[in-house]
């Protein structure tokens, strides 16, 4: 074999625990099987990995545990198709393949000393969770932290207990919302961008971080613009179908930019420089 590293070859990882988050989202807490690889594995908040179920294939997921917590790597997987369907059948003790970390990360250095507002929809909370926990682990570096998070219904809110505990501990301000009224829901009802407009966080010395379905991102970016957020203070993480994850397969381009290596994290200033093809 040649001395070149093989970017397609996954490392083996073991599932330590599976957490059922919602009817279609499970979180997998995994560790690399090889101890030396485990010790030397480092990543930044927002980076992703490719998980393999051998025989079915690979898919991209954000590492949603923060680098400050090293007991395991967590991935939250929404069941939508083949690989995610097979992942949902795995249990603690099962093995999978892991390639990563891949991609760029949230510019958390630039956010120090600022207020932060997280705006998320559905599984889009997964990448933001990494950054949120990272900030809580470095709480003194950041100002007010607000979270606006919405899902279809109460049962579809991911990490709900965890976030409510953060709120109760006074670490964050939290607005949870669902699309439609239901008997088991006493909280907010309405679409995330609308609630963001109602909350109207002052744009002054504040960064907004958003992820969710493409349509939600679009309206959220527009709302933030109305609220006066400067382009470089709006950060989003994009999903784009990708295969190799390392800049070779050609799937995930937006113009000459590859989401897998140049992203997935972009500021709105960077997005505006790209062809309008999202």
């Amino acid at each position: 074999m040649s001395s070149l590293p093989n970017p397609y070859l996954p490392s083996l990882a073991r599932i330590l625990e599976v957490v059922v988050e919602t009817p279609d989202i499970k979180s997998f807490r995994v560790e690399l099987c090889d101890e030396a690889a485990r010790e030397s594995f480092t990543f930044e908040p927002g980076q992703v990995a490719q998980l393999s179920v051998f025989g079915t294939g690979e898919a991209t997921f954000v590492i949603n545990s923060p680098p400050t917590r090293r007991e395991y790597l967590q991935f939250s997987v929404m069941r939508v198709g083949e690989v995610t369907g097979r992942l949902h059948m795995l249990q603690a003790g099962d093995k999978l393949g892991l390639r990563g970390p891949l991609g760029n990360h949230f510019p958390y250095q630039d956010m120090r000393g600022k207020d932060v507002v997280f705006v998320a929809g559905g599984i889009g909370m997964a990448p933001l969770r990494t950054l949120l926990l990272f900030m809580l682990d470095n709480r003194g570096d950041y100002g007010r932290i607000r979270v606006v998070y919405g899902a279809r219904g109460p049962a579809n809110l991911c990490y709900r207990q965890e976030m409510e505990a953060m709120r109760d501990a006074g670490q964050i301000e939290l607005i949870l919302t669902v699309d439609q009224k239901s008997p088991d829901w006493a909280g907010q009802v309405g679409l995330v961008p609308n609630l963001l407009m109602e909350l109207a966080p002052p744009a002054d010395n504040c960064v907004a971080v958003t992820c969710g379905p493409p349509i939600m991102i679009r309206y959220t970016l527009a709302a933030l613009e109305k609220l006066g957020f400067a382009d470089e203070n709006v950060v989003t993480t994009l999903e784009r179908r990708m295969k190799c994850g390392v800049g070779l397969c050609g799937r995930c381009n937006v113009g000459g930019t590859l989401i897998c290596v140049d992203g997935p994290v972009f500021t709105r200033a960077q997005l505006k420089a790209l062809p309008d093809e999202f």
Partner: protein
Amino acid sequence: MSLVFLARENLPAWIGRLYQDMAVFAPMTINGVAAFRALGQDEIPDLSRIPASSPKAAVFPQTETLFTFTSRKHADDLSQVDIDLSYHLAEVPRVILGARPCDARGLKLMDPVFGGKVKDPYYLARRERTIIVSQACAMPDRACFCPGTGGGPYDPAGSDLLLLPVADGWLAQGLTEAGEKLLAQDLFTPAGDREPEAQSLKDKAEAYLAQAPDMRGAEQAFENLFKDEAFWDQATAGCVRCRICAYLCPACTCFNITDEESGLKGERIRTWDHCMSYMFTQEASGHNPRMQKAFRMRNRIGHKFCYYPQLHGGTVSCTGCGRCVRACPSGIDIRRIVESMKRKGA
């Protein structure tokens, strides 16, 4: 370097010698179609016409195994499974014989993709072991437009050895050390006074292609027309998404990765992909950033004539080989698209 002569009747003997030391990829005509493939012993290639396919499969096969995986269950605890992964890289040296100058340039266009910041070990293992023997194009056809992309029918760029056709054989011009080494002394004779004959064929071929439209410098026009949906609709109208343009293209490199499994063993496989497919960008949420065929064509054209050149010093990701033009069942002509793009987007 001086030219040497290879008589047509010595071609089989020469190939026989090459075959002893390396895999030989050359065009073979089967059922009337000349396409590159690995020659078997004593097979003689067809160098008489422009091959329908490019030789890119010699370094970037249409299907290849990235690695194999094998699961092993523990005898005493069947819930415990170990997984072994293994892969291997090409070791056999290879020669592409009868590439056209456009094909040699195609490989040069793929090199920065697979050998950039992240290196593709599979491609590079083959590429490092590949020698390119090109045949200059004495008879370009109406679909050819290599000069419009920065090449030419006798362009030596990217070749190790260039064969210049003459009536009864070829004049061989070694361009690299690896190429010169292939010139078996007893089969090649001094070129004598044959050079003017080769030169006059070259002049004719170049004159024939003098009208090729310039496909370079379209970046700004592309950006200006990006939002002109009518333009892209018209450019794409006939497309039936058959994929042939990408498969035949010497510069297209997009690939898919899939798994195949049987029992406890399986393989992760890479295959050529195609950006005109709806599924290429279909996302799980139902969202598709290139919902219409026209948007996919826009990306295809943009990649070749705007995005790639912007990243690679103005070089377009097209060699003017004309294969997509010849093969398109709907008569889509990439020259017309770029020409009208440059005109309308000026």
